[in-house]
């Protein structure tokens, strides 16, 4: 009964310190290094059905993940019921007994972050006011007005949340951040358009752009022409590049995939695998996903994965680092409180020699359909382009009805024609346009 009272108190806005202490003490008493990852928050999401708001959904989050370690055996569990904290701890302990022993040098110890503070909280979002969310939708709709496309759907959302990571070594870090986002889906005949935006700050969100561009995209892509199968110069939008990076390149930078030989980049550290123009790094101090400590309390830092084409680093969490004699790069991430921390990136940036890549005519892809079907180990892919067109002197012209693009993402990034001066900030990545020559396009 005691636990219930504590649970209700936390659900009503407590910072969780009481239940966190209780779990850490119980774990310590049983001889386990113990870690609690604790998430609270709330949000509001408005869904457009056609051009009318059809659903208004509010949510409250209360969840925690517990991890225990003894003799190099790791166990995890999670729950969203405060009253089940003991079941959760016991389940983590039971799981640890079956997992195989590994090298383990201890959970994160208290340490100073690489920068002193982050700017990730907007007080204008913090109360998740439904009127504020409604205003975002209205701004987006009025920018879409009279643009010629039908609005099929969309959304406007606000959220605020606090994540805390605490362990028996004395680590206890909390980060409170806000988020807002809008999206719009449109159609004109059988030509579809989609745009979105998200930010940690209301003032940085651009619902007008989303409304305008989602409509323009559908209208522009109507009555697309055919393209003959052949080799073409291709410009990929930041979104298309991001889709391919996420499906293949980012997983191949994970130390775990590298050491388990599931990465194309295995054995290639120090080699010039990519075009010399290209650099790829994680900058955890900017963007919506910015954080001072990773999901297991290790200070985050900039990681230069690829510098001037040369593979310089892989991403590690504590577990993988201990196992293979490396150092954690502060790359542990969690998608919510469930499961165990895994290796990921916080804010991936593709950079390098910037130039005007738009002068000469090329096939342009706004997005790609089916990036997740790429071969994650080899990098081979074959995807359908969405809202494809020709691009001439930087201007989109002559939409292409349907085109399939086949290639290998690693070969493409080795033989890059150019990186644009412009970038798009996705909140968890900052990505430019990329130009490639002689890619295989299959028409109808």
């Amino acid at each position: 009964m005691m636990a219930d009272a504590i649970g209700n108190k936390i659900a009503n806005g407590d910072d969780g310190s009481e239940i966190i202490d209780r779990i850490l003490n119980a774990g310590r008493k049983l001889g386990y290094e113990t870690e609690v990852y604790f998430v609270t928050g709330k949000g509001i999401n408005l869904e457009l059905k056609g051009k009318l708001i059809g659903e208004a959904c509010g949510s409250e989050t209360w969840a925690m993940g517990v991890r225990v370690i003894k003799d190099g055996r790791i166990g995890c569990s999670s729950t969203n019921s405060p009253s089940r904290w003991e079941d959760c701890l016991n389940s983590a302990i039971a799981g640890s007994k079956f997992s195989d022993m590994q090298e383990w040098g201890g959970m994160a110890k208290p340490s100073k972050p690489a920068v002193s503070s982050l700017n990730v909280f907007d007080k204008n979002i913090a109360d998740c006011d439904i009127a504020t969310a409604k205003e975002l939708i209205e701004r987006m709709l009025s920018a879409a007005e009279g643009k010629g496309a039908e609005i099929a759907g969309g959304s406007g959302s606000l959220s605020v949340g606090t994540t805390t990571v605490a362990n028996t070594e004395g680590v206890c870090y909390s980060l409170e951040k806000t988020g807002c986002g809008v999206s719009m889906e449109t159609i004109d005949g059988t030509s579809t358009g989609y745009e979105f935006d998200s930010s940690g700050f209301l003032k940085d969100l651009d619902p007008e752009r989303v409304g305008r561009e989602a409509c323009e995209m559908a209208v522009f892509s109507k009555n697309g022409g055919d393209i003959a199968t052949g080799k073409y110069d291709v410009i990929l939008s930041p979104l298309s590049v991001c889709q391919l990076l996420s499906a293949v390149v980012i997983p191949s930078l994970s130390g775990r995939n590298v050491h388990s030989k599931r990465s194309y980049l295995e054995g290639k550290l120090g080699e010039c695998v990519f075009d010399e123009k290209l650099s790829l790094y994680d900058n955890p101090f900017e963007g919506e996903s910015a954080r001072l400590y990773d999901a297991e309390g290790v200070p985050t830092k900039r990681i230069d994965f690829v510098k001037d084409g040369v593979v310089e680093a892989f991403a590690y969490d504590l577990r993988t680092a201990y196992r293979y004699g490396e150092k954690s790069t502060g790359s542990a991430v969690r998608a919510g409180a469930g499961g165990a921390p895994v290796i990921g990136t916080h804010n991936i940036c593709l950079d390098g020699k910037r130039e005007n890549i738009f002068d000469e005519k090329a096939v342009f892809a706004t997005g790609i359909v089916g990036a997740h079907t790429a071969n994650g180990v080899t990098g081979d892919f074959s995807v359908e382009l969405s809202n494809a067109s020709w691009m001439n002197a930087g201007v989109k012209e002559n939409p292409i009805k349907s085109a399939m693009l086949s290639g290998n993402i690693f070969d493409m990034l080795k033989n890059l024609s150019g990186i644009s001066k412009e970038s798009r900030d996705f909140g968890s990545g900052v990505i430019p346009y990329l130009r490639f020559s002689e890619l295989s396009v299959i028409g109808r």
Partner: protein
Amino acid sequence: MESPDYYDIRHVNGSSVHIEIDNGRIESASGSFSDTAVLRVLKKSGWGIVSIENYGSKSKKEINEYIKTALRYASATAEKVELAEAKSGILKVPAMKEDPREISLEEKCGLLMEIERAAAIKDIINTRANYTEGSGTVHFEDSSGNEYEYEICRSGYSVSAVAKRGDIIQAGRESEHTILGLNLRHKAEKGRSAAERAVSLLDAKPAKGGIMDAVLDQELAGVFAHEAVGHASEGDLVKEGVSVLKGKMGERIGNGILTVVDDPTLPEFGFMPVDCEGILPARTEIIKNGVLNSYLHNRQTLAAVGDGDAGHARAQTGEVPVVRMSNTFIENGDSSYDEVIAECRNGILLKGSRGGQVDPGRGVFQFNAEYGYLIENGELSGMVRDLSLSGEILKTLHDIVLCADDRRMNPGYCGKSGQNVPVTDGSPHLLLKNAVIGGMG
């Protein structure tokens, strides 16, 4: 208190188990607990919805507060919602042969290890296996007095192997999921088959892209039924005008040999005893002998669009119900597999699936096969890899000219609106004329 015109609450009290083995090491064996409800209300216009965690501990007074909050949210909406009447009811959940929850974690780890170790053969450099088990009690009640409760346990595993020779790397994968009880016993051959596929792909040539006749195996053709036909028939997409099947009810949209069905009553992985609005699930024939026959609906889209069956509302735990498929398949034809291959004469056999995606508004789909074989003079020849198939839904439905009589069902998960739900896809082998094949050869 102001009362809603309609409300429903769907509460899921569940637990899950996950085991992960990587190269013969048990990386994790974990369990989790969840207790979440979604409350929806209607008042004058659209839905006000609240997602509530730790629902089991809430008092009547707190629940009334949530209803008030949901009503406040509903007042921000503008769309008028009507709910069609549909038969409420619940099916019996099929019995399990062996309840996974009664098997110790230790034994499950051992069984998964047997499957994973069977994949460690020559040329294989990495093996991995996962087991997932999700079980729980689902309770539904609405303001019309309907109330249902059921318990279901879904479990399954996947095993994958990576093969390497020189610079060539290839992967193979097998998976099985079920509602019929533990499926980990005597499955070592699945580990071996994933590994053997990866090894044989080392010698396969990259496929040459282009337009050609293709035979789709049961798994890939099932993905076609799901991605290209199933999604476009979802009533919410039809209602918002983003489906190429809008306005085509009763029209011939495909070859007369083609019948496509969604049936949540089958004891397959996509089974549900009652939908998320308390409606009794029923078999829906989306395409019957080439003619568009029914859309998949929830109560709202049935009222707005018509022409179909409610009972297809589904949701991931803690999420808002949306119109979803369950067990979706193409019915058997009367040709044999050999006849389908012979009839293709020169083309390609596409096998297995690495997933797919569809833009139902544009009517375009894309998916990847795991591997394939060239068909020359009506017979299978060399193995090929990294192939994909894309096309226009409406054109493709006319270009399916033969259906074999060997339908098989494949369980998996489907993503839509940020939610994953368990589904099964199925089909017999199909012959598709003038297919757009992507490849790098």
